[in-house]
């Protein structure tokens, strides 16, 4: 079965099933009042959907707004415009009691395993917290925490220990356990493996993949590393300075990128095979992508125009719309 038929089946499934998450024209500006209105948007008109059981990868450089999107979905960042709907209901401006009503169906795993667990609380207390706020009795919360620890490959006794007694990889498993303890539907993974060593990164990625297959989870997988994303994601959204540059099936985006930025991003990711890497290096150098400039591009044009080897006057004046190229959507005048 080729990749293309898989994609077609996915597309058909999408038509019948309602979206798990729908992000529409999302705009986030930092700051308050007038200051925010004049500031450049950290997230600027982003649209995407996640279907049930699907993993969407959100890729971009630092400052591209990928983590901000994750925070906006989780209600940790105020949204300036657009909407976020979860299972058909609008949660753009939901407060903490409304979020509590979501029943723990929308959860998160964060990047830094050192600060995502409160160092002063036992693992058991941290795992039980999402259950306790939903009125689960202490004894039951504890036994569920033990079950969940066992599920992520840690001993049950770990409930009584403190985060400092675990390695980075183990703490990230605990974070996964914490996210999954109240049977979520969608988990936002914000750079969930980027602080880990290769072998522990592989363990956590496998665990995420297993749990997805086992429970039919959806993930929004936010990462700067496109190779890590393509292991887990069926679809990829590539961001640059708060705007979507390219979006499409993971294989299409990573193997035949259409947008000059995606091309640069893919070519810059080094592979551990010296001969092939030398080829990739030549390819990257031949692309002619310029170094990031300190100043932002003019508001009207393409955000990538200052670094882009193909940029023309049109690119600096008119923002390209996301349009269909093959299986992907690409925001480039010349794709």
């Amino acid at each position, binding site marked *: 079965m080729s990749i293309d038929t898989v994609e077609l089946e996915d597309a058909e499934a999408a038509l019948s099933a309602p979206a798990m998450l729908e992000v529409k024209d999302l705009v986030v500006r930092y700051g*308050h009042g007038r200051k925010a209105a004049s500031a450049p948007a950290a997230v600027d008109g982003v649209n995407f959907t996640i279907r049930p059981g699907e993993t969407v990868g959100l890729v971009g*450089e*630092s400052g591209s707004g990928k983590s901000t999107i994750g*925070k906006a979905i*989780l*209600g*940790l960042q105020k949204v300036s415009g657009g909407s976020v709907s979860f299972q058909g209901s609008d949660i753009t401006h939901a407060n*903490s*009691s409304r979020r509590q009503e979501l029943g723990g169906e*929308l959860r*998160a795993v*964060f990047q*830094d395993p050192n600060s*995502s*667990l*409160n160092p*002063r609380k036992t693992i058991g207390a941290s795992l039980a*917290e*999402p259950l306790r*706020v*939903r009125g689960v009795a202490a004894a039951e919360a504890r036994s569920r925490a033990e079950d969940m620890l066992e*599920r992520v*490959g*840690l001993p049950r006794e770990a409930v009584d220990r*403190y985060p*400092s*007694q*675990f390695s980075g990889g*183990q703490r990230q498993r605990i974070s996964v356990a914490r996210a999954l303890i109240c049977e979520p539907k969608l988990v936002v993974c914000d750079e969930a493996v980027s602080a880990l*060593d*290769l*072998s522990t*990164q*592989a*363990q956590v*990625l*496998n665990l995420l*993949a297993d749990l997805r297959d*086992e429970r039919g989870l959806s993930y929004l997988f936010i990462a700067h590393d496109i*190779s890590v994303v*393509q*292991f887990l994601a069926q679809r990829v959204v590539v961001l640059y300075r708060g705007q979507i540059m390219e979006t499409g099936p993971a*294989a299409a985006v990573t*193997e035949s990128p259409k947008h000059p930025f995606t091309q640069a*991003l893919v070519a*810059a*990711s*080094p*592979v*551990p*095979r*010296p*001969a092939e*890497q030398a080829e990739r*290096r030549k390819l*990257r150098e031949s692309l002619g*992508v310029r*170094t*990031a400039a*300190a100043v932002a591009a003019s508001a009207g044009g393409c955000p990538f125009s200052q670094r882009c080897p193909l940029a023309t006057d049109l690119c600096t004046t008119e923002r390209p719309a996301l349009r269909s190229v093959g299986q992907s959507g690409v925001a480039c005048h010349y794709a």
Partner: protein
Amino acid sequence: MIPSITPTATPRKTALAKFSGHRLLTSPGGLAGAVWLAALVAASLTAPWWLPYKTEDQDFTAVLSGPSAAHWLGADELGRDLLSRIFASAAGTLGTSLITVIVGVGLGTILAMTAAASDRAEGIISRVTEIMMSLPGTVIILAVIGAVGTNIPLIMAILGILISAGIYRVMLGQAKSLQSQLYVDAAKVDGVGTLGISVRHVLPGLMNTVVVQSALIFAVGMLIQAGLAFIGFGPPIPQPSWGGMIQSASQHVYDAPWLMVPSGAVLALTVLSANAIGNALGKSPNAAASHLPSAAIRRKRAADAAAAAAAAPAVENAPAAGQLSVRGLSVGVDGGTPLVTDVTFDVAPGTVLGLVGESGCGKTMTAVSLLGLLPSGVSVTGGQILWNGKNLASATEKDLEGIRGRDIALISQEPMRALDPMFTVGYQLTAAIRRLRKAGKAEARAAALSLLEKVGIVDAQRILKSYPHQISGGMAQRVAIALALSGKPRLLVADEPTTALDVTVQAEILSLLRSLVKDTGMSVVMVTHDLGVVADICDNVAVMYAGQVVEGGRTASILDNPRHPYTLALLAADPHANTAHDMPERLATIKGQVPQPKDWPAGCRFAARCQFAGSACAVPVPLLPSGSEDGEVRCVKADELAVEGLGWLATEVPTHRVLEIVEKDMA
């Protein structure tokens, strides 16, 4: 395979250790202070049972007398016993000071937590506290006394409110940083409300500051209370108070100077005790640990290393200029655990060596030992670092200072750390050039400009005038490289130089390093965990595991044809090794984790995690030629694996299926 992991065996933290109580008990000043306060309170509360006199009892034979058998601390102008009066009033003084502490610190903490939770609240509370801090506190307290009389508890409570503004200022920054922790975000995602987050996640983090501030405010409260009593606003007249006693003593300072001593000394001792307790609790546990080793340790280290070098066999033939040869290098914690053992490699001029492995494998320790920059308490315990025929492992600090920056330079993972935020890039760069090249001011400036252009900075003039916070991470790493190049080094030690950067910027920095190596003929020791970076830039590679080199040789032969199971496993676990089409359903993993140095076994250190381990792996394994080019490998089964063409297997069965199978077996 179930990735079964046993947590590291650190002793469980007790509630006492968490609550900084041990810090109080281990500090002599804090301990003395605590004992004094406890004794004072106990003595005062039990005063009616043991004091020889009532506070109003007058003994006219002892008016203004000094210490005597009847009156141990003497008597005042009305013949009242000083000892009795001091101790009878102690509990009241301490108790009412406690009111100030509870109101001041409590209110300040609550305000800080409220402000940290919401930007709008912070705006309002900050304005209000600014106004409070600008009010004349003394005038307000005197006005209150004028209105309601000398109601000491009320006055102390109002004092607490006035002080809370200052406490708020102290707490706010800390509360805000706690509020921005990821675990607070995680709790918000859980649906924990604002109050719940403040109480459960922010307050515990503030406790240390709360305790320290309480001790200090307690002392302030006592002093102010005594001051008020001194000017006549103490408890009503016959009732004793410390301030009142000092006041009456001051009227007899010429005819009975002793009168001042007991009450003054008790007040001073109590205030000192509170401050000593505050100091003891406030001491950061790591305050003493400094990054650089002390002079004494350096001298001892140099002597030890010299002895080790003398014991080592002499260099056979003097190496060429710019040649680095590390021979049997061992690094360890002073007085025990080894961190790096028997590491041997060569770096020829104009080549790049990659030190690769997971965290905790000794890569960075090996790299910084080349510059003599091992952290405090860690030193070279054996072997040689031969640079231009000189053994750096036994070099004195003075010799190393001549080599560091000039012959061997360092760039680190965090480029911002190499730059001082207080000075412009231009100032830092020219200062380094003037020091290292002994150049004049104008010459140094021209050199700085050309260095920045050399590291690929287009608008060098503007960057020279910028402060570090005004430039991006990639630009800062370029500046850090320019800084490292200012002494025209022959060897660059690069510790994860691109790990904190975006991949597009990483590719640019690697290209820059490659062209610098080509143009200047310098060599590079590159510490990295990224096999793709190794493939991109390194000529040779040494794969490190648990403080040893497990495989070394030409990069192409090691990455394309790995022999050691650890190298095989790393490559199999790396998602970069696959494209989307051949991406496996599961990545290969290595069970368990890198062992702690104290847990290293005598035999192969990787055996416990190795898919191919057998009984032959229990004995120490030497680094032997692998047979492919000039590669070396530390594995008894390397030949066997190579002949059979075995690779590191990914686990085919997802973990939950394994669990199901296990459960069925159990049933």
